[in-house]
């Protein structure tokens, strides 16, 4: 890690996104550092997903987003992996997990079958995510947790420089969430990419993210998780009714509770 410790993978300067005359994001400055997990937090509609889309170049914006590729990752444009929140699929869509890999991994049209190489790639990636048994399962019938792991396996296949996760634990049961988070930190230990995760679950954030960017249309605050997630900042982000309090049953991780009164 020496040398890349303070390297920013991503520099965001004065980023503004307007949609239909409304500023969804205004004047955002933020850095995402190489080899770290950065969490993007904020209330619903704060522009978290919009920021991800701006990084992916899928919404028009003003300001700059600069990618700084770590030398150890070699030359060329940075690879961005993206794990969407969910897939808008019908449960009976005739696409298996293997087909899903084939769609991006091979030139041969999927109706002529998955190539042997695709099958190897898919099995290897799924095994890493602990879900090799899902290979032949229809994509629309996976549970939330299974789908997340498949998406994660697929995103990691290309060895991304930055991995963007949109609400990685929404729609996943508690056990699935634990497994997913364990897996995440494990992968992160050996792969050295940076990770930007959108989450409204502050227990996930405090447990896994070293850095936090707090958003509510503008930048509320950013910095090390332990320093930034203060009651004052949370109030500025979510309104004064929000409290971070600790559950007796939980292992000391905070959950954010919004008492309503919007």
């Amino acid at each position, binding site marked *: 890690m020496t040398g890349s410790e303070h390297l920013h993978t991503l520099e965001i300067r004065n980023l503004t996104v307007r949609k239909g005359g409304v500023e969804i994001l205004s004047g955002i400055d933020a850095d995402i550092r190489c080899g770290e997990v950065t969490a993007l937090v904020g209330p619903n509609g704060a522009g978290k997903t919009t920021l991800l889309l701006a990084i992916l170049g899928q919404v028009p914006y003003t300001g700059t987003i600069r990618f700084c590729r770590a030398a150890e990752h070699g030359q060329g444009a940075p690879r961005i992996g993206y794990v969407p929140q969910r897939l808008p699929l019908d449960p009976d869509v*005739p696409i298996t997990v293997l087909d899903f890999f084939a769609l*991006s991994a091979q030139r041969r049209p999927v*109706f002529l079958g998955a190539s042997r190489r695709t099958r190897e790639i898919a099995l290897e990636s799924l095994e890493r995510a602990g879900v090799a048994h899902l290979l032949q399962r229809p994509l629309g019938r996976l549970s939330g947790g299974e789908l997340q792991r498949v998406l994660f396996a697929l995103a990691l296949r290309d060895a991304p420089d930055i991995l963007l996760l949109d609400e990685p634990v929404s729609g996943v049961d508690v056990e699935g969430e634990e497994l997913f988070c364990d897996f995440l930190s494990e992968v992160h230990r050996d792969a050295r990419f940076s990770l930007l995760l959108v989450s409204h679950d502050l227990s996930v954030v405090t447990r896994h993210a070293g850095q936090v960017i707090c958003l509510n249309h503008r930048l509320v605050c950013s910095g090390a998780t332990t320093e930034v997630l203060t009651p004052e900042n949370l109030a500025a982000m979510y309104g004064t009714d929000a409290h971070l309090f600790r559950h007796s049953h939980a292992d000391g991780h905070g959950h954010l509770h919004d008492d309503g009164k919007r």
Partner: protein
Amino acid sequence: MEPILSAVFALMDRLLPFAFAEPAFMKRALLALLLTAPAAAALGVPLVQHRMAFFSDAIGHSAFTGVALGVLLGVSPSWTMVAFGAIVAVAITLVKGRTELSSDTVIGVFFSTVVALGIAIISREKGLTRNLQAFLYGDPLAVTDAELLWMAALFLLVCAYLALLYNRILLLGIHEGFARTKGVRVPAVEISFALVVALVVTAAIHAVGILLVTALLVIPAAAARNVARGAASALWVSVGVAALSGFAGIVASWYLDTATGATVVLATAACFAVTALYRVTRPRE
């Protein structure tokens, strides 16, 4: 081109030594259906995944106006129908990508405008109505040699197009943002797919007519969903259902003396019923 067609007809005489296949118009009808129905069914699989059934219906109805324009301008309506359908398909796709409106709203606006334009033209031109009947209900028995050759060319175009872009079309249907990160150029894929669908829809109108053309895209794909689990079987079941019901429908219409296009669509619906029954009775995994 003539010798190719007569060679094909001679071959059909050998393969199908039955009374129904004897007349040349029946051979043409069979060829027309076996070229357009499977092509429509193959496109139907991604079309259903993209929830574009309404889109294909709108293109089908735009043909109505295309035909009216052709008669008005004194050009062959078969070709103005193709050109107009293609223009409407591209226009809908471009507008859809640049507005906040949902796609069915955008399609609804185009659909009504285009049909209204068609009716306005027809109401001015007396004696046009008879001309339109063939297009409304479809008449594969009246397909010309030129139209047959166009259908054959289109069949090859669809094969080549799907071989090149099928993976990207399906990936786009799964999640647009995700597809982009995998290098799918979304506007190019969307516009080309809309265009190919428009070409096939306007060709298939000769077989089953404006009112029923969406059935050729949607029903085989829906039947395939009942039995297929994977992407490969979905496409082949859909194409198989289309070819089988195209053939069965035309034969049945000969013996039952019913409208060919409608009989073909009923045969396709029967295939759907069989697959639905299979799905219901199959033990759940």
